C-alpha cells in the first residue's frame, strides 16, 4: 500500500510531457497513414491505368493529358482481347498443364514428405539435407541436357517435359509438407499401428486428412507458379496452338505492334 501511494505522488512524466507525447503520437499516426497511401498509390495506379485504358478506343489512348475516366466508355476491348489471340485455347492448354502438375505434386510430395517425417530410417537426415541442397541448383544447369534428352525421345512440343517432373517431387514442397507432417502428434500414428495399420494406411487415413491445410497451400502455390511459368513453355512448346496463356500474351505485341488497349 505504501509503495502505491509513493508512486502516485511522484509521477514519471509531467502532464505537459504527456500532452506533448500524445500530440507527437498523433502526428506520427497521420504521417504513417499518408505514407501508406502514397506508397499504396505506387502499387495501385498501374492497375487503375490498366482498367482505364482497357475501356478506351485507340484514339482515346493517345489523348494528352490522359483521361482517367474515358468518355465514352468503350467495352469492346474485352471481347476483342479474347478473339485477338485464341484466348480460350491458351487458357485450356494452361489449365491442363496446371492440373497435371498439381496432381503430380500432391501425390509425390506428400509420399516423400511422409518418408522424411513419419518413418525413422538410417541416413534419413543426410538425404534430407541433399533435398534442401537441390533447391539451390539453378534451372539453367539442367535445362539444356533435359531439352536434349526430351528431344531425343521426341517429346519436345508436348506437355510431357512440363508435367512429368512434377510426379517425382519438388524440394520446396517436400520441405513444406515435411515441416507440417512433423507437427502432427505421434500418438495418432501409434494408435493406428495398434489397430493394425501399416504405413500406407497411416499415410492415407491419418496424415493426409490432417494435412489438408498444408496440401491446400501446395495446390495454390503450385497452381500459381505453373500458371505464370514462362521459360518452361517457351522452350518446350513450339507450335502456337499448344501455347500457354503466358506465351500467348506476347501475341498482343508481335502481330501488329503493341495493342495497348487490349
Amino acid at each position: 500500500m505504501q509503495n502505491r501511494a509513493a508512486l502516485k505522488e511522484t509521477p514519471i512524466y509531467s502532464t505537459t510531457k504527456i500532452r506533448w507525447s500524445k500530440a507527437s503520437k498523433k502526428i506520427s499516426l497521420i504521417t504513417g497513414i499518408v505514407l501508406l497511401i502514397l506508397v499504396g498509390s505506387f502499387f495501385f495506379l498501374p492497375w487503375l491505368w490498366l482498367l482505364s485504358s482497357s475501356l478506351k478506343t485507340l484514339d482515346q489512348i493517345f489523348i494528352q493529358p490522359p483521361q482517367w475516366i474515358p468518355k465514352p466508355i468503350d467495352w469492346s476491348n474485352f471481347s476483342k482481347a479474347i478473339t485477338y489471340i485464341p484466348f480460350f485455347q491458351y487458357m485450356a492448354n494452361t489449365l491442363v498443364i496446371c492440373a497435371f502438375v498439381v496432381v503430380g505434386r500432391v501425390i509425390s510430395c506428400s509420399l516423400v514428405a511422409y518418408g522424411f517425417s513419419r518413418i525413422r530410417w538410417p541416413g534419413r537426415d543426410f538425404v534430407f539435407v541433399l533435398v534442401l541442397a537441390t533447391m539451390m541448383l539453378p534451372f539453367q544447369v539442367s535445362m539444356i541436357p533435359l531439352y536434349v534428352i526430351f528431344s531425343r525421345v521426341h517429346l519436345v512440343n508436348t506437355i510431357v517435359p512440363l508435367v512429368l517432373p512434377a510426379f517425382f517431387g519438388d524440394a520446396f514442397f517436400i520441405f513444406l509438407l515435411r515441416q507440417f507432417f512433423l507437427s502432427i502428434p505421434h500418438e495418432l500414428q501409434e494408435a493406428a499401428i495398434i489397430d493394425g495399420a501399416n504405413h500406407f494406411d497411416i499415410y492415407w487415413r491419418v496424415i493426409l486428412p490432417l494435412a489438408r491445410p498444408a496440401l491446400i497451400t501446395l495446390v495454390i502455390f503450385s497452381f500459381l507458379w505453373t500458371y505464370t511459368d514462362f521459360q518452361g513453355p517457351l522452350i518446350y512448346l513450339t507450335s502456337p496452338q499448344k501455347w500457354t496463356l503466358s506465351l500467348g500474351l506476347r501475341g498482343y505485341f508481335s502481330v501488329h505492334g503493341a495493342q495497348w488497349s487490349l
Partner: protein
Amino acid sequence: MYGILFISPWIIGFLVFQLYPIVLSLYYSFTNFSLIKPPDWIGLSNYILLFTKDKNFYLALSNTLYIALIGVPVQLVFSFICALLLNQKIRSQVFFRTIYIVPTIMPAVATAILFRWVFNPEIGLVNSLLASVHINGPTWFADPNWAKPTLIIMLCWTVGSTIIIYLAGLQGVPTELYESAEIEGANGLQKLGFITIPLISPITLFNLITGLIYAFQMFTEPFTLSGGTDASTLGRPQGSLLFYSIYLYQNAFYFTRMGKASAMAWVLLVVIMIVTLVTLRTGNRWTNYEIR
C-alpha cells in the same frame, strides 16, 4: 525399408531430372555441340572463349551483377518500409495489405507488358503525369541508361512475397521490448534502429539470399521487356537488358551452341554457390540470432 520406399519418387526424380542432367551438362560444356551432330570434345575451349573473347558474356554478367548489387538491396529496403507501413495498428489495414501484395500474383509476362506501357515515353502513365507538371520524362525502357533503373522500379512493384515474410517477422518481435524502450525514452527512430532492425536481421538475410538467387536467374521480365518474341532482339536497347540467363538462352536455343551455353550454366552454378556461401558467412556477422 519403408522409408526408402516412400521417398523413392524423389530419388528417381533426383537421379533422372537433376543429377544425370547436371553431369551431362558438365560434359557438354567441354564439347562443341549443336544438337544435330553428336557432341565433339574440345576441352576447355568454351570456358577460355567465354572469359577471354566474349564481350557479351561480360556485358551480361555485369548487367546481372548490377541487378544483384543494386536492385536486390533496393527491393529489400523498399519491401521493409512497406512492411513497416503495413504493420501500423490502424483500421482498414487489410485493404492496404491487399493492394500492396496483389501485384505479386500477376504473371511476370503480364507485369512486364503492363510496365512497358506505364513507362511508354509518349503515352505512358509516368510521362503523362510528369508532363502535367511540365517535366520532360526520360524514355525509360527505350533509353540504355534508364532501362535497368526502370526495371528495378518494376521489380519493386512485385515485392509482395518479401513484404509478407517481413510482415510476419515484424509481428514476431516481442512488444515488451518496445514498451521498455519507451519507458527509457526512446523515440521511434531509435526503436527502429536498436530493436526492429537487429531483431529481424535473420529474415533480412533470408530475403537477401533468395533475392540474389532469383536475380541471377531472372529471365521472363527482361525477355518480355526487350521484345519478347524473337531471340535476335533480346537485350535491347543496346544490350542494356542483356542478362545472364537471357544470353544463355540465346546461345542455347537461338545460336544452338549447346556446349557454350552449358559452360555458361556451370559458371552460373559456381557463381550462385559462391555468392550464397559468402552472403551466409558474412551474414552471420550482422545477423542477430536469438540464442536461448
